[in-house]
């Protein structure tokens, strides 16, 4: 059992000069290709009791009252590259509040902090690879790159899979946001089809009437390559 190699065309290059911070933080020598061994083919295992009861509910896992903002359900499935669900894997999210402000000592944006929003959530996927978070739609925010760059609304995602080589950190954007096309971070991915894979789509089927608008974001981790010895 082995894994298909990562397709560099699907990912942003380490050096993406329009995203200025990547200039000093990108390796310049080629990555060394490695046949995955036991270290790369195994990965940490998480259990339900590693998590708290409210961890997946960003509407209530921080403050006393409901946070300000557009209430959303962000949900989807974690699949591997062979289309199979990845069950019991850890999905973690973090995000700005509805004003575009992070609860972080180093975020100095003028957007208001919300006393009822922490901006962190996590869950394990179900047997069928599904995950879901209740949260508010994050606001766009400015950042220091050129003098006038604004991040599209986004939720940061971290996913494990079953093998350490599947480890992925990414960001999910929202359908229809005009800032995606102007974002040096999103556009560091050269292939527009790949950028589109990071866009969560409005999902009226899962919308909770009089409660929350649903968005769907599926995540695909690296897949295994079938060998002659596998049936």
């Amino acid at each position, binding site marked *: 059992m082995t894994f298909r190699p990562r397709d560099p065309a699907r990912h942003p290059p380490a050096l993406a000069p329009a995203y200025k911070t990547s200039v000093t933080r990108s*390796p310049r*020598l080629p990555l060394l290709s490695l046949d995955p061994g036991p270290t790369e083919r195994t990965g940490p295992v998480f259990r339900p009791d590693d998590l*708290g009861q409210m961890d997946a509910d960003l509407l209530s896992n921080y403050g006393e009252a409901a946070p300000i903002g557009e209430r959303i359900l962000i949900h989807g499935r974690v699949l591997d590259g062979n289309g199979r669900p990845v069950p019991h894997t850890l999905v973690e999210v973090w995000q700005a509040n509805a004003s575009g402000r992070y609860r972080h000592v180093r975020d100095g944006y003028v957007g208001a902090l919300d006393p009822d929003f922490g901006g*962190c*959530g*996590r869950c394990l996927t179900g047997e069928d690879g599904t995950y879901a978070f209740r949260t508010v739609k994050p606001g766009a925010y400015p950042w220091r790159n050129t003098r006038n760059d604004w991040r599209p609304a986004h939720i940061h995602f971290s996913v494990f899979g079953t093998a350490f080589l599947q480890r992925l*950190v990414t960001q999910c954007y929202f359908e229809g946001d005009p800032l995606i096309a102007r974002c040096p971070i999103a556009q560091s991915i050269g292939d527009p089809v790949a950028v589109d894979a990071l866009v969560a789509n409005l999902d009226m089927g899962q919308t909770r009437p009089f409660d929350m608008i649903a968005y769907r974001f599926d995540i695909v981790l690296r897949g295994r390559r079938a060998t002659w010895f596998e049936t």
Partner: protein
Amino acid sequence: MTELPETPSQTAGPFVHIGLTPGAARTGLLDLGTAIAAEGVPGTRIRIAGTILDGTGTPLRDALVEAWHADAQGRYPPDAADGFRGWGRAACDPESGEWVFDTIKPGAVGDQAPHVALWIVARGINQGLHTRLYFEDEDNSSDPVLNLIEQPVRRDSLIARRTDEAYRLTIRLQGDGETVFFDP
């Protein structure tokens, strides 16, 4: 068989602590990955520590590092010793940039010398970086992964030096002594 393309990677950004070290960032949840090996797990207790330098030689103070390694017998969970999780997560110190893991020394994994897989994300890093830490007081001469590195001088970038309190490794993202990063 269906082949689905992988979801693209994006930088973890400057505020990764909110989500991945929420205890330290006080965003309401407890930290995961604080105990790689519970008390009582067989093995020599060690500390591994270091810094990550950018192309100007400045330590990254906003990076997040994850460690994954085998138990003292070279086994990974779920086949490892009871209480051994094998996985740890550490934020770099916001002042010094130092990362630290307290764990047990891993054993050899098959024909590979004892090692710790490290994975680094941060603002400005578009794809999480995979590297390894080896121990200077082990025999690394026949390790097949180190021997894949064409230039012997570059193998040193993965070998942690033993000091009184820790095995220490400086990770250099680019420039002189650039660390070897893997595409596993």
